[in-house]
């Protein structure tokens, strides 16, 4: 007879997510599924729309990373219209995008990851939030944690028009030049952003690497997925967020592919599973080999750790020093899932350094921000890709001669990591659920198994104290509740219904 453990809903995920842990007769985890029960249908309802509306329309895919969709779409339109934005437009877009990566990465760290690391996995729940973190790191850094999001986001709004859904991208450039006042603000803020990224890394090293328990978790097999890595690199093989080629390395670090985003279909395929609305990507040349690890599997990871593994170096000096430290500690390529947090901070430093460089670029003040493209000569296709905070984001469009879309395919970061997340959850479940015994440690570790990936909507909770609340219900073969384990859920609240058992 089998039993199941249902965690429903898991919060801090785009829409609603749930985890089903399926047990065998001995009560050991046999398998686990992270289900994503959400579908809005963008790939259908973007068809028939005017191409130039896509940067705004697809920003609505995600209110957390609208900047990534906005610019991936802008690049797809540039390709569609064969338009080359002037240097100033590209600089301004890059400035905007690096500000976005900076704030998104650091706020994930401080508001989501930080509480686990600073309070300790077994600390009382009330300490596991940003207030607990601030108590540990002190007033000065604490105040900066709170103010840095606002500063970065205010600058983003000044550049792109709105904070949540940007509106400034057009084929061939952007809708308006930067105000001189905005340029001055960016210049003034940039060194502060770099310092904050550096101080965060320093704090991470002290809090996490200096802690035996975390060092052990970092190296634990439960938190390791050996698979390929993919990320964008510039012409010199350095890590890029925009305007590069995509590079895939195998689990040993050997290059498997280096290609222009427009050729993505030669390398990436999508699999449909009936139990989740999220499609799962895999390497086309390897084929779908199930949820398996290793060089023969077609699975790969993207996002901060995937990008660091796939790049030969960081694009900025201080970030490169930090990259080397990371791989000296963990080995290269690194497959430790918890290293996503570390890699995220290295990337945040690169983003801040890039903001600082761009802030001093004379092109930033130029009024020449758009080359207006000619109408399409006939049906055309265009692919745009950027590195979103969570990984490679691909927009692939086809339009008719009127510039109206006839086909839209969006491949988002959470899809690339989808299969690896399943492996992580299964490993955590199998490694931890023994003889039907479940304790608070399981809850924490199951959570850490997928939180490191920063699954899409996790970052929406950046500004709040945070720890994933979990309720696990253990049911016997007869369906009767045998045990309920809860964390950060009031004891007088009833157990959640077992989502997998209802319609």
């Amino acid at each position, binding site marked *: 007879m089998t039993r199941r453990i249902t965690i429903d809903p898991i919060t801090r995920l785009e829409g609603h997510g749930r985890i089903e842990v399926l047990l065998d007769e001995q009560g050991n985890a046999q398998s686990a599924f992270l289900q994503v029960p959400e579908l809005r249908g963008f790939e259908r309802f973007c068809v028939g729309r*005017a191409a130039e*509306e896509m940067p705004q329309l697809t920003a609505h*895919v995600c209110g957390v990373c609208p900047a990534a969709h906005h610019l991936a779409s802008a690049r797809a339109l540039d390709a569609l219209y064969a338009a080359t934005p002037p240097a100033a437009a590209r600089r301004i877009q890059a400035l905007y995008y690096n500000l976005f990566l900076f704030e998104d990465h650091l706020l994930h760290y401080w508001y989501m990851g930080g509480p686990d690391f600073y309070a300790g996995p077994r600390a009382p729940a009330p300490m596991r939030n940003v207030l607990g973190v601030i108590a540990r790191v002190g007033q000065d850094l604490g105040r900066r944690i709170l103010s840095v999001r606002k500063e970065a986001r205010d600058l983003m709004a000044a550049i792109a028009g709105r904070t949540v859904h940007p509106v400034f991208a057009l084929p061939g450039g952007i809708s308006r030049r930067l105000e001189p006042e905005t340029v001055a603000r960016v210049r003034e803020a940039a060194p502060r952003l770099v310092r904050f990224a550096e101080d965060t890394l320093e704090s991470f090293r002290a809090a996490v690497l200096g802690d035996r328990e975390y060092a052990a978790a970092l190296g634990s097999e439960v938190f390791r997925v050996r698979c390929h890595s993919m990320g964008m690199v510039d012409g010199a093989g350095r890590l890029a967020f925009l305007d590069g080629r995509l590079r895939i390395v195998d689990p040993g670090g050997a290059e498997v592919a280096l290609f222009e985003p427009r050729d993505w279909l030669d390398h990436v395929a999508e699999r449909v599973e009936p*139990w989740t609305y999220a499609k799962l990507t895999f390497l086309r040349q390897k084929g779908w080999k199930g949820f398996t690890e290793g060089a023969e599997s077609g699975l790969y990871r993207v996002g901060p750790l995937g990008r660091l593994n796939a790049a030969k170096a960081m694009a900025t000096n201080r970030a490169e020093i930090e990259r080397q430290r990371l791989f000296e500690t963990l080995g290269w390529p690194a497959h430790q899932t918890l290293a996503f947090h570390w890699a995220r901070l290295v990337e945040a430093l690169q983003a801040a350094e890039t903001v600082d460089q761009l802030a001093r670029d004379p092109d930033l003040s130029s009024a020449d921000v758009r080359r207006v493209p000619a109408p399409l000569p006939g049906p055309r296709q265009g692919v745009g890709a950027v590195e979103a905070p969570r990984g490679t984001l691909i927009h692939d469009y086809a339009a008719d001669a009127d510039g109206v879309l006839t086909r839209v395919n969006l491949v988002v970061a959470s899809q690339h990591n989808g299969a690896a997340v399943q492996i992580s959850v299964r490993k955590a479940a199998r490694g931890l659920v023994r003889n039907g015994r479940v304790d608070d440690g399981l809850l924490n570790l199951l959570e850490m198994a997928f939180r490191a990936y920063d699954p899409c909507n996790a970052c929406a909770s950046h500004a709040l104290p945070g720890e994933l609340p979990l309720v696990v219900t253990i049911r016997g073969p007869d369906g009767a509740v045998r045990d309920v384990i809860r964390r950060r859920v009031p004891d007088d609240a009833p157990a959640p219904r077992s989502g997998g058992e209802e319609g």
Partner: protein
Amino acid sequence: MAHEPRIVAFLCNGCAYQAADRAGQAKLAYPQSLLTVRVMCTGRVEPAFVLQAFREGADGVLVAGCHPGDCHYVDGNLRAAARHAVLSRALEQAGIEPARFRIAWASATEAERFAAEVRALTGAVRALGPLDYRARALDAVEDAIRLAPHRLEAIEERVGAPRAPGKPRVAFWWNASCGGCEEAVIDLGDAFAALVEKVDVVLWPVALDFKRRDVEALPDGGIDVAFVNGAVRLTEQDEWAQLLRRKARVLVAFGACAHTGGVVGLGNLSEPQEILDAAYRAPASISNPDAVLPGQRVRAAGHDLSLPTLLSSALPLGAVVQVDYTIPGCPPSPAVIGAAVDRILSGDLPPAGAVLAPNAPLCGTCPRRDSRPERIEVGALRRLATSALDGTCFLAQGLVCLGPGTRQGCQPGCVEAGMPCRGCFGPLDGVRDGGAAMLSAFASLLAGGEDDVRALAAALPDPAGTFWRYSLAAALVPRRPRKGGPG
């Protein structure tokens, strides 16, 4: 017996109504099922009238007036022609055959011509069969009732315990949405911190720990204010809407998706099956040899796994539960959120159903408003993609901008960033269908003779997705009919 189509005819007082009268006196043969509405001029016929006629059971609509050049109001019939041309295309995008909506010219003496037009429309509509607006409109609600077993219990009279003492209990929930509304709340900054101090948050999945069971355990009326964002696209989202309606004293639709369906509503131009095919079967990247679709109950490792399913169409929150107030925008701006939340929490409650943003069109605050000419004439359409833009009124440049029909409150928004308005704050008070109103307003600017306005209307890309960008789910536009069952 063959279906006898119901035709509504809007006839101008100067010509077509007289022609119809003569046709009647002359006992000319034309279908007697015609319901006529006399208007002073076809220029008075708003697209919303046409949509309302369909909504109230018309299978076809005729707009008939004086010949171009003979209009008693100079060129009202050309405005009607332009609106007809744009609206026909929008209806076609929604799966409504253009033959159901006809415009014709007949002078007062042309009785036979009028009768022939009616015969032609009736014949075409008879061949198409009934429009069945009601079934189209109700499919999704029907799905919600059929697929969500808890619904009937939810629509019982709300009793509600007396309001609990202490801080107001507030819930935030998301349905089919992007998370941008959550970001907008967090972006309130200091005001957000102050808000959290003033209330007890009892549900906020993006940030806090409470589960569905926790909400179910609250007494009815145990939540003082529930802010719900997102459209209702999946069965589970309807269940949450019902649950929160039962538990909340005040239910607030938060953001464009809950208000008017948002961009999710554009999915209503397609059937659920087409949405599933486009996501899981059609793309070249898909490797799906067995053509698997998510949403069916499946067995995995000896267990059932299931997912909520798509409703026939996306719905605004107000289509499945009674909404007390609305905070509009995609996302709502910090100023609008702050003012609305203060008002609700202070107990200074606005009239039921109020939309909590300024009831004035965006043009009033547009930085380009001084460049708007007294009379705008669009002689050539321009596209954002391929046009160099200047700093003057977008409409005067021949670009679609929904500012005239859209509520203020976004500022700074798109127009401040050099881009035209797309209407996310929704229509002003009293406007049933903001998309129809803006379609009417823009089509009425098209300049030239009959052929010119028709050519301009034909060149306008994607009218349905342009005028109803954020509001198709709440529009009067009939939905695409359902061929099979729900997705």
